[in-house]
Each structure stands twice: as structure tokens, then as C-alpha cells.
């Protein structure tokens, strides 16, 4: 059951490693895929002339034209719904939802059609659509611009859900998502959009629906994704000063979850902390806790702990630092685990 290999035929062969932001990584991924396949199109509000409110699609309409980069009407249900029709027609649309909080008008088309048409037609209709969603908080915004809706989609069979955490993953994962024949919800941590990393195209990517151990450790395992990856790595750095040797795993794929590395880690450390911005009730963090306690029952020295947003609507900007998990809350959870 190997994942399909990426088409790297149009990759720039000898590009030197370059330092890029996540935005640049996403932009480059889009450009590369649009060059590779004329059926790849980008559609969303303000993605064309403006290049997107975060500039992720900057320059694409100029180079690929208005029929491949569409400034759409202000209609999320329309963006998803027409993308489905275009996909049936043979296109590979990449939809941009401007902000996480605005995905909901499109929720019906996502769960009623996007998730179900392949199943409904017993595989005859394929919908190779990517829905890109900037998500998460920490940008001091007004309401509806800092949501973490990924659990709704992980809960919906027929969809695949991923979240990148850094520029290199952003580049590769978006390319892989575009080349994937299933509908993919692609969550981008907007607070990390401007962080930088070195992208070396000579280094082959890992499969899309797989997790990765970022930091080896022995005291406890942190499993996390998206914006909280950086927070967790910071917690590991800070924790080292207190003698805590934390293992940090970037889940990357939220549906399907790749928990093999997490199980292996928990069998060594005996302790798991799941870190996620989303509120904890009925969340992906809860799903991970359930699976780990089942698979690693006899290894657990403490129950699986979760460090998450609170079960409130996202608060006004002045309170968001209280809402969002930070490295102190992560380390407090580690301490609690150790005291068990």
C-alpha cells in the first residue's frame, strides 16, 4: 500500500538550497504544480490580482492567466461547489478559503459532496481538490480569523486532512496534496507564515500522510501539529534547562493519523502530551489520546494529557495569549505527568 510517488519531472534540477518563508514555500509549490500540469487551477477570493490577502498566490495570475487563477465571487459554497464541477470536468482545483472562520458556508458542499462523491459513485468520480485554509490564532485578529476547525473535517470520512508546520513541509506537502487524487483539506498555520527555513530540493520529501520525530528524547513525548509545533520545540528547549529531555513529534497528517512513531515513542517514554490550539472537547487531541491508551496501555506511566485551547469561542485579541497553549503550559503538563 505504498503512497504514489511524486512527479518531480519539472522540478528545477540544480536549484541551490534557499532560505524561504512559509508563504514563499507555498507560492513556489503552487507555481511548480501549475507548470507541471495545465489542469491545475487556483481559485478563491482575491487570489488573482491581489495575490491573496497573505500573498500566497502572488504573481500566479500574471504568469498563468485569469482562467487558471480565478478571482471568484464572494461565495465559499460556490468556491467548493464549482470546484467539484470543475474536477468532474477534469481539472485539479486548489481552492483557497481566505480565513478558517469562513469555511463554514462551504461546509455543506465539503461534507455532502466533496467527501462523498467518490464513495457514492463507487470510485468512478475522483475529486483531486485541495482546499487551502490558513488556520489558528496568535495574530491579534478580530473574530472569526483565528479558528481551528480541523476536527470537523478529520471527523468526516472521505476527506484527508493535513497541517504543515514549517516552510519545507509547506512546500512539499502542498505539492503532494495537489498530486493526490483524494480531496485534501490543507491547513496552514497563519501565525507561522513569515517564519523561515532552508529548502533544499535535493532532499527528497517523506510521504504526505506521515508524521515525523523532530527531536528525540526520553522524559516524555509531545505530539502536536501546525502552529503548536514551534511552541512545543520551544518548550523542549526551555525544558532542557530543567533537566527534561522531551521527544517532539510533528503529526503532519490529521486524517489519516500516522501514529506508529508516537506509539514507538510512548513505549520508550511512557508519557504523552498532546498539544493543539483547538478546543479539547471532542477534538483530534482526544482521538489521539484514545488510540494511544489503547495501543500503549501497558506502557503508560501516566494518563495521556492534552494541552489545548479552552472550550470557549476564540477570545478577543487581548486575551488570546491566555487562550493559546504556550511553552509554560506545555511544560506544566510535563511536570504533571511526571508527578503521576
Amino acid at each position, binding site marked *: 500500500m505504498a503512497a504514489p510517488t511524486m512527479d518531480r519531472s519539472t522540478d528545477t534540477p540544480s536549484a541551490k538550497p534557499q532560505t524561504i518563508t512559509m508563504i514563499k514555500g507555498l507560492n513556489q509549490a503552487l507555481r511548480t504544480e501549475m507548470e507541471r500540469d495545465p489542469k491545475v487551477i487556483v481559485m478563491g477570493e482575491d487570489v488573482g490580482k491581489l495575490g491573496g490577502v497573505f500573498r500566497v498566490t502572488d504573481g500566479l495570475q500574471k504568469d498563468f492567466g485569469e482562467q487558471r487563477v480565478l478571482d471568484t465571487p464572494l461565495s465559499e459554497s460556490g468556491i467548493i*461547489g464549482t470546484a467539484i464541477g470543475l474536477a468532474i470536468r477534469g481539472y485539479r482545483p486548489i481552492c483557497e478559503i481566505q480565513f478558517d472562520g469562513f469555511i463554514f458556508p462551504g461546509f455543506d458542499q465539503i461534507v455532502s459532496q466533496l467527501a462523498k462523491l467518490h464513495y457514492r459513485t463507487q470510485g468512478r468520480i475522483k475529486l483531486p481538490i485541495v482546499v487551502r485554509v490558513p488556520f489558528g490564532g496568535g495574530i491579534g485578529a478580530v473574530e472569526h480569523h483565528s479558528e481551528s476547525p480541523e476536527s470537523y473535517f478529520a471527523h468526516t470520512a472521505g476527506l484527508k486532512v493535513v497541517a504543515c508546520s514549517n516552510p519545507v513541509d509547506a512546500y512539499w506537502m502542498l505539492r503532494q496534496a495537489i498530486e493526490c487524487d483524494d480531496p485534501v483539506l490543507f491547513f496552514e498555520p497563519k501565525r507561522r507564515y513569515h517564519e523561515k527555513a532552508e529548502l533544499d530540493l535535493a532532499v527528497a520529501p517523506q510521504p504526505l500522510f506521515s508524521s515525523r520525530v523532530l527531536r528525540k528524547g526520553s522524559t516524555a513525548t509531545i505530539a502536536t501539529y501546525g502552529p503548536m509545533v514551534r511552541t512545543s520545540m520551544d518548550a523542549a528547549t526551555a525544558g532542557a534547562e530543567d533537566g527534561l529531555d522531551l521527544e517532539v513529534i510533528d503529526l503532519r497528517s490529521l486524517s489519516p493519523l500516522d501514529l506508529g512513531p508516537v506509539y514507538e515513542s510512548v513505549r520508550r517514554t511512557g508519557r504523552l502530551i498532546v498539544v493543539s490550539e483547538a478546543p479539547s472537547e471532542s477534538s483530534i487531541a482526544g482521538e489521539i489520546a484514545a488510540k494511544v491508551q489503547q495501543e500503549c496501555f501497558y506502557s503508560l506511566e501516566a494518563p495521556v494529557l492534552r494541552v489545548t485551547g479552552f472550550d470557549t469561542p476564540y477570545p478577543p485579541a487581548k486575551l488570546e495569549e491566555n487562550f493559546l497553549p504556550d511553552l509554560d503550559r506545555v511544560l506544566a503538563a510535563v511536570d504533571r505527568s511526571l508527578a503521576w
Partner: protein
Amino acid sequence: MSSPERWSQPQPSGAPAATAASPTAEQVIAGLRATSEGGPELVQLLTPEGERVEHPDFHIDITPDELRDLYRDMVLVRRADREANALQRQGQLGLWVPLLGQEAAQIGAGRALRPTDMAFPSYREHGVAWCRGVHPNEIVGMFRGVDHGAWDSVAKRFHPYTIVIGNQCLNAAGYAMGQRFDGKVGDDNGEATMVFFGDGATSQGDVHEAFVWASVYDAPLVFFCQNNQWAISEPTERQSRLPLYQRARGYGFPGIRVDGNDVLASLAVTRWALDECRHGNGPVLIEAFTYRMDSHTTSDDATRYRLSTELEEWKLKDPIERVKVHLSRNGFADHDFFDGVQAEADELAAVLREHCVNLPEPPPGRMFDNVYAEPSATLEAQRDEYETYLAGFAGGEH
């Protein structure tokens, strides 16, 4: 073709509509009249009495042979519909969605489509399915509960039935946009798309968003609305203040109301609309003014919310009867022909029954098939666990 300037203005009545909780007799009668008459702009080419009439904007050249084919189409489609209805009454189907009374609208629209055109139905368009080469056998599976739609929608260019009201309009708009992006729109050989929906659907946001998208992208999309007067128990007055075809004006494209019980008018107007779209002048809205002669589905009791007098009025406008009368009176068909069609219809019903009652139960593992195009390890593990669990029962599966 009616243009916006000629459309009637909505009359403010000042009094509650017939849909009020306790309507007066006048209101009820007014409501009845509204549902049984199509208004002055209704396009009709064949009267309920079977007489050919002219229309200033629409006209059709039709041979006796073609007329007989249309008659046959409608008779067969109605017969299959009635058989499926009976099968539900006998417990062989969980439910059936009857098209009784709407045969002319669907055959007229369906026969206007070209092979390269694409159709997006709602869930009642078994007549359009027929025209697209989808046999009733391929439809009953989803009402029996063995599948969610068995025909090859890509090959037959007839999308699966969409049960969420209005979703299909956006999908159709996207498909039609694709036709334009592919450069297949602009001349006689152009492609077009037609999407079907009802009067109730015109209240859904997706339908209005589709109007927006199709119009701003000049998509070759015909919006074919079958106004059968009822959305389950709610009359069209609950969906709109003005006649539905007039909505198109607000979005900047033409809207036409056609007698949905007149197969010739439906065919003529739809041909024209598809042609407009092929040539790049889309979209177009057609409101087929018709009546839902049966209930919403087999478990709906229409007698709870509509008067039998209304049904009786519409019986006088039967779509098949008027064609039969016209064929007879003009010597285009004789008893042999009618008997032959009836026999063919009965044969179709028998084939449908036989197929339906013998549909195999799907095996439990089928539940896990085709969730994704590319495999998912977690799902496969779940499937394995379930099949192991089932194997633990004496007597095999189920």
C-alpha cells in the same frame, strides 16, 4: 423569449396569502388559481386538448415519427415510475420519488440534450435519466438501499442524484465553467450543461450562488427548474413572491416560463436555451410550470395539505393524454401503435420488477470500499477488525 421589460410586476395584495394558517375561501381560490394557471407569459405549443398552437418566440418543427417517439418516451417513463411506486408499497423499495405528471418537462428537456452535453439532476429526474441512457434498473438500487446510485455518471453524462437540495447547481456551474475554459463554447458545436432543481430549491443559497457564478463566468448552463407547485407540503408561494422565472432578471440573464406539461414547448424552449449556451450566451433559466401529481415521496400523504380539486384540475392537463389525442386526431398513430407502446411499457415494468427483487444484498465489506481514491491504513485496519469480528458469528455474515 420573454424579456425583462415585459415581465409583470408583483401585485402587493395587502392581505395574507393562501398559505396563512387560516386562509379565507377567497385566498384559497386565489391560491388555487395561481397554481393552476401559468400566467400570460407561459410558452405553450400544444394545448391540454391536443391542439397545436403558435408562439411568437418559440416554434418547433416536429415530424409524426418524432412525436410518436416522445409519446413512447413519456408512456414508458410513467409506467416505470408507477411500477417503482408499487414496488415500494410492497416493501421492495425503502422509498420511491415519483415523477408522475412531470413526464413532459423531463422528456422535453432530456431530448433537447446532445451527447456531449452534461446533465446534473436533483433526485426526481428519472425521465431525464431515461433520455441519457440510464435504465430504471440502474436507479432503483439507491431506493432499495443497496447503493447510492449505480450508473456511470461520467460515461452517461448524468450526474448522480443529489439529495441535498440545491448543491448540484453549484457543481453544474463549475462543470459549465470548465466547458468554457476548455474552449468548447462559442459556436454550433459548443457544449452545454443543464441542471435540474425544483421550486423549493430556489430558496437555497447554493442555487443563488450558482446564478451568480454562472452569470459572471458566462457559463453555458441552463437552469431547468421544474416548478411542480409543491415542496413536500409547502406551496410555491412560500418560496417566492414573484414567479420563479422572473428571478433570473435579478442576476442578469433570461428567464422563461414554459408549460411543463407540454412536451413540445419544453423541447423547443430547452433546445433554444441550450443553443444560447452553446453559443456563449448563457446562462438561461427555464421554469417548467407543471404539477406533482403524486406525493413528495411514497411516504408522504399529500391529502394532508392539498385539496383534491387542485389535483382534478391538473388531471385535465395531463401531458401524455394531450399527445395521444393529437396523434389520434391527426392520424399519426393508430390502435396498434398505442397497444404496442403499452405492451412495451408493461414489459419494461416486468423487467424492472425482476431486476429489483433480485438485487443482491451488498456484502458488509462493501461499506469500506471506495471511501478514498488512495488507500488509508487506518481505514483498512478498521475493515480488517470488523471482518474478523463478523467471522466470530455462527452462520457467517449478517
